[in-house]
């Protein structure tokens, strides 16, 4: 027990010889210069303390290696290099004390190399193979993208494309070639099935008996929870997929579509695909960038109570809301035309515009969203808007437009959302519009919430 605790001090202790010996080497190097000659008396004592702490590190290291959780080859190398460090530093002390300058120089150089290599090997043992060049951000910062996007999740081999990448980012650090905590390796099929020193960790088809899964869902404050507290945790989606993989029999070759799926799994799988298409990017914002709009134009419009601003801090694309500016004059028309490159979202609810103003809007060719609900837009005005080829969303709720008017936008293949509730468009026109805009969701409104007797009745206990 006490020995185990002492052995745990190894990763802390090793920093003493590293620091002290580097200092000794530095002092030795500097003391040859006249200016730093006063450092010379400190060299022997630095080597002495360095070598003593190095020996202490060797002892604790030896105790730690007994746990058998590390890769043998790396461990052996680290062990012998460490012992060499202790020897060399002791030799360094002797040479320094006896003022054998030349010998000390050679020992210092060897020691420098040894320290670097031993330290690196120790790091490999603790943090896993290739820890040095690994980018930190990939697996710790944004855990939602831990699983790489998959083009077609239903066609993916579950183990290889979904489970293994998860194990790789969340488990391999302690359960793979370089380190086998609890004697467990999770990097190949054989090792996974073999289990750890306490036996099997997976029971095909039974999540309740599978140690791996039990550890994952354990409360994170419990010592046995995996991954350990402080390490990147499995996301909710990853946990769900892991559960599914074990419950369906821990198959290593089958594809997603061959395994039984609940709706939750289906949606988790499809969200894996979504990452591939970068779901976070919205379609109603152009991918390209644009130059900054003229500040004086913006200010001029703000004088008319127009709310106009960038769609986000780091973007020059503009959105404008005319909720407090229902009538336009020629100056507004002129100013807004000046923003034709940047303006992508336009709200003109309740607008009462002249034909010329609608013509101005028709010239805003970058528009993605146009909200013209309750406005005086007519079929003629709508015809002009045909040129807005980027338009995706158009809101014409409570206007005078008819089916014939809306048909004029037929050529626009980007339209995905069309709102036409309470317009001159009738039920019999819907099928025609559906064929005219096959890609769009056409919302015809007129939803009703029926009256139920219970809506207004109060429930009371029966009088006794």
């Amino acid at each position, binding site marked *: 027990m006490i020995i185990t605790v002492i052995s745990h001090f190894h990763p802390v202790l090793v920093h003493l010889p590293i620091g002290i010996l580097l200092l000794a080497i530095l002092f030795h190097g500097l003391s040859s210069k006249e200016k730093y000659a006063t450092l010379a008396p400190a060299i022997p004592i630095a080597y002495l303390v360095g070598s003593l702490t190095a020996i202490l590190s060797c002892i604790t290291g030896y105790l730690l290696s007994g746990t058998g959780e590390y890769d043998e080859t790396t461990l052996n190398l680290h062990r012998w290099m460490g012992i060499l460090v202790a020897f060399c530093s002791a030799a360094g002390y002797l040479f320094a004390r006896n003022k054998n300058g030349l010998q000390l120089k050679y020992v210092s150089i060897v020691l420098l190399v040894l320290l670097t290599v031993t330290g690196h090997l120790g790091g490999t043992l603790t943090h896993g193979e290739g820890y040095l060049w690994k980018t930190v951000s990939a697996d710790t910062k944004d855990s939602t993208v831990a699983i790489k996007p998959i083009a077609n999740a239903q066609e993916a081999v579950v183990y290889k494309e979904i489970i293994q990448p998860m194990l790789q980012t969340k488990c391999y650090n302690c359960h793979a070639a370089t380190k086998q905590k609890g004697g467990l390796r999770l990097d190949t099929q054989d090792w996974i099935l073999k289990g750890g020193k306490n036996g099997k960790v997976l029971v095909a088809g039974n999540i309740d008996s599978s140690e791996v899964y039990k550890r994952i869902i354990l409360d994170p404050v419990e010592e046995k929870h995996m991954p350990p507290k402080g390490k990147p945790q499995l996301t909710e989606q990853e946990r769900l997929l892991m559960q599914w993989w074990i419950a369906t029999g821990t198959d290593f070759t089958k594809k997603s579509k061959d395994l039984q799926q609940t709706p939750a799994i289906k949606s988790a799988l499809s969200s894996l695909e979504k990452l591939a298409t970068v779901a976070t990017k919205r379609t109603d914002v152009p991918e390209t960038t644009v130059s900054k709009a003229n500040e004086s134009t913006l200010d001029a419009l703000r004088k008319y109570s127009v709310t106009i*601003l960038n769609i986000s801090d*780091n973007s020059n694309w503009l959105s404008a809301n005319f909720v407090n500016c229902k009538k336009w004059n020629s100056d507004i028309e002129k100013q807004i035309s000046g923003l034709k490159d940047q303006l992508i979202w336009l709200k003109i609810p309740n607008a009462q515009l002249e034909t010329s103003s609608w013509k101005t809007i028709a010239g805003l060719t970058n528009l993605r969203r146009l909200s013209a609900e309750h406005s005086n837009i007519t079929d003629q005005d709508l015809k002009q808007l045909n040129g807005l080829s980027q338009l995706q969303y158009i*809101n014409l709720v409570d206007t005078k437009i008819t089916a014939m008017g809306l048909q004029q936008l037929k050529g626009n293949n980007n339209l995905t959302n069309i709102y036409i*509730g309470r317009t001159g468009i009738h039920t019999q026109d819907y099928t025609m519009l559906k064929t005219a805009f096959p890609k769009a969701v056409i919302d015809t409104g007129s939803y009703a919430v029926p009256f139920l007797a219970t809506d207004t009745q109060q429930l009371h206990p029966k009088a006794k």
Partner: protein
Amino acid sequence: MSRDHQRIIQEANALYMQQQTRRHFFKDCVTGMGAMAFGSVLGGCDWLASKDANSIHSNPLMAHAPHFAGKAKSVIYLHMAGAPSQLELFDFKPDLMKLDGQDCPQSLLEGKKFAFIRGVPKMMGPQATFKQYGESRAWISDHLPHLSTVADEISFLKAVQTDQFNHGPAQLLMHTGTPRLGRPSIGSWVTYGLGSENNNLPGFVVLTSGGKNPDAGKSVWGNGFLPSVYQGVQCRTEGDPVLFLKDPAGMDRDLRKASIDAINEANKLTYEEYQDPETVSRIAQYEMAYRMQIEVPETMNINNEPAYIHEMYGTKPGQACFANNVLLARKLVEKGVRFVQLFDWGWDSHGTEENLAIDFGFVNKCRATDKPITALLLDLKQRGLLDETLVVWGGEFGRTPMLENRDGKKNPFKGRDHHTEAFTMWMAGGGIKKGFSFGETDEIGYSAISGKVTPHDIQATILNQLGFDHEKLVFPFQGRSFRLTDVHGKVINEIVA
């Protein structure tokens, strides 16, 4: 400068340094410390400098761009104050029915603390019939016959957890990110970050119903340490929506304008002298009140709405009721108000009286809110606004699977105690997945087993939908940056479309 000059200066410096004794050091330290302390005091006031150098001339409620292009432009938050029972609405637990009337197992009581349950309570099965609705097959009880028709618009969060089991602290946690007083509410943070799309209306409006304000009081829509211009404006649903907004008899609008201009001139001088940001707030509030005089009565008047809308929402013009508030919320959002917060009091179904009985008062609360909420979702949808309006529904915690036995005695009616470990909330619109359910509870709905989310996660998600990184929307106060989610919160990406 010649070398000689430099030498002289160097020598002078050296001489000066020699004269610096320990005494000097301590003496200087005192003023130094004082300066540092003073700096942090001023730090609390530097919101102007950090946001806009010459804010005195600009409106603090002017619209601002968010961190990234958000999917939602506004939020309607429907808070059912008192905490509705998830076990009678969305979290269907047939196994709990089998345990109905049996003693609660010790394992569920050990080490737990309840607000009113003492000793060993009995379990109580769901007091409602459940069915699955929509393509998403969402479980919804027969208490909500209308909402079940729009199940496919909603994302349910079935495993919300909180750590406060009393109303006040739990409501504060839900709305301000901490169970203690003093922090800004979520609506204040949003208006601070985004400003208002409509200069003639407040950015953050609060409407209450159910006869009482929420237990936590007005702090749940307070501005905390943010300038007071960002606090929620509570509008009344009967009489004048905002008190003292009307001009007194005999004062015309021009005279009003002239007097406000004069007052603001004086306030500007005061600001130049004392640099207190509250003075800027006051100037902005005077100006907004003047603009609101016309716009507010118009927007807050539901009498002009067509008959089909009144039928849809089940509104009762002239009365204070939840349905009216819901319709107002839609009108306000349509006009560009950022955050509309509704509080409906009366969901605290302990079973201590008829109004708070799970089989009477609770059912009546469901009946009074089901139709308007459903109408809100459908009305926003048919107006093309649902995609950019985030609707959030929930209480401050949930209710126990056990029958409440207040102080160890039987209550006159059936009821459930406060429960923190698992309850249901839902979100719809504003870029949230349609027809989705996230999180699970155990067989009896006692604890969350997967998809746990906290009030901070919900706040982070609301800010995310509006285009904010909740870790970056900060305000410097008392020497450090504060944020709504404090040091917690993770966006619930699973429900984001």
